[in-house]
């Protein structure tokens, strides 16, 4: 399974390295969202401003929006040239395919989160404190996000309205992640990481639950897609 996962993740990342859709479109999109929040809630900046106080929440909303695009891209590359049939016939372990596709999106999203964190710190004037909690919550939240995203990505890939279906399915599901990740970041940025560790647990539970569910459910879902 792990070998299969590495193969699939390697394939997806190679496609990304050649097409640069994530770098050229998803990352700029997330930056646009950060700018839009600034326009909607600005122009006051600095300590105590709405933007600065809401920075953790706005950051995670931007990540959520970008996740949908990344997942859609991850399944769009399978829709071309009968690639999905190739994947089904490849004999790879479906659990491995799930982990591989999720890992590829996860890697791209983590890179995007680093860029976005810099943008938020800069534009919303918020000092990035509590590094360890920030990184840990990013990791746990992203694993949860891509697990749910990959499950629903394959569910909606059978539909002709997949562009509109995926966000409808995805956003309500990941509401707990938005909540917990925002709270964890809030605690870390406020310099009280003790308050955030509980939220980190929520993120970890969510990630483990949906990672496990995806490895079990992906096989039948892929067959049907």
């Amino acid at each position, binding site marked *: 399974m792990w070998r299969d996962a590495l193969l699939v993740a390697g394939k997806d990342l190679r496609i990304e390295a050649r097409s640069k859709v994530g770098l050229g479109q998803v990352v700029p999109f997330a930056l646009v969202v950060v700018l839009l929040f600034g326009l909607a809630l600005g122009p006051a900046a600095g300590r105590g401003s709405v933007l600065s106080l809401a920075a953790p929440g706005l950051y995670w909303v931007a990540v959520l929006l970008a996740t949908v695009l990344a997942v859609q891209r991850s399944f769009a590359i399978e829709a071309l040239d009968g690639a999905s049939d190739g994947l089904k016939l490849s004999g790879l372990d479906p659990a491995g395919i799930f982990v591989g596709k999720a890992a590829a999106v996860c890697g791209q999203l983590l890179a995007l989160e680093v860029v976005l964190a810099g943008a938020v710190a800069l534009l919303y004037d918020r000092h990035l404190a509590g590094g360890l909690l920030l990184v840990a919550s990013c990791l746990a939240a992203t694993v949860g996000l891509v697990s749910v995203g990959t499950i629903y990505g394959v569910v909606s890939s059978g539909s002709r309205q997949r562009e509109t*279906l995926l966000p*409808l399915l995805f*956003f*309500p*599901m990941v509401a*707990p992640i938005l*909540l917990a990740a925002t709270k964890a970041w809030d605690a870390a940025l406020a310099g009280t990481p003790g308050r955030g560790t509980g939220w980190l647990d929520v993120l970890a*539970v969510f990630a483990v*639950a949906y990672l496990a*569910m995806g490895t079990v459910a992906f096989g039948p879902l892929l067959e049907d897609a």
Partner: protein
Amino acid sequence: MSLTTTPTGPGRPGSEVPPAQLTALDAARGSGVGSVPGREGARRRRSGHDVAITATGALALAGVVATVWLGLWVTPPDRFMGNLVRLLYIHPSIAWVMYICYGVAFLASLLYLWPRTRSLRFDKLAGASSEVGVVFTGLTLVTGSIWGRPTWGVWWTWDPLLTTTALLFVLYLGYLAVRRIPGEPEVCARRSAIAALVAFVDVPICYFSVLWWRSLHQAPTVADPITGKTYIHGSMAWTLLLSFVTFTLVYAWLVARRYRLFVLAEREGDEGLVLAIEERRAESLQGRS
């Protein structure tokens, strides 16, 4: 153009449809309509179901009338809430039905995924129950809001129960959208059942994270609507009890009707194909003669 043409033999000379295709079409007709005795038996069984459904519907209607009468005229206004208390005769029972709906949909999905009990009947039950569930979730939110405005002064508050209910509403709207993805019945059923399980697991995580989210700020100042129960007795308690029974009956009736509609839609799909084939055949024969 008549739909009741005599069946033509496969590969009859003069027909435009090639022989191989005709045999396939005949096979489709055979599986779609079934033999005549089988249909008669099914019709007899159905009429028994119909009586049960109609009886449930009649009881539900009588219950609704009685609940309205008791709730609006017989019971006294509450000492603290005044006439607002009358909303509490329906709001908890609607919410209760909502839980039944999602519970039944979850169990039916589980039974569908379990290989020994796999049957498309469970898929239809899950679909019917969750559709009714979304309607009752909407009603729960609306009646709750109407009650909340005069009582708490706001239409909406980020109480764990309210927030989870709102998320439940959108979660299951998504599930209904998944159910509408076209495909083979078995494929759709399996996909929907998995989606139902994935959504159901999210509900407790949502509830506890929202509960915790709130409790970090302040203890919920909002009392659970059901705690109003402690103040009520006599006719009020009976009205509330009756409304629980009534809305459960309404649920049973709606699900039975919706299930029936799924069956009929499926049969329409099957028989519509056969009718279309026969019509097409009659046209081609007329064109030749």
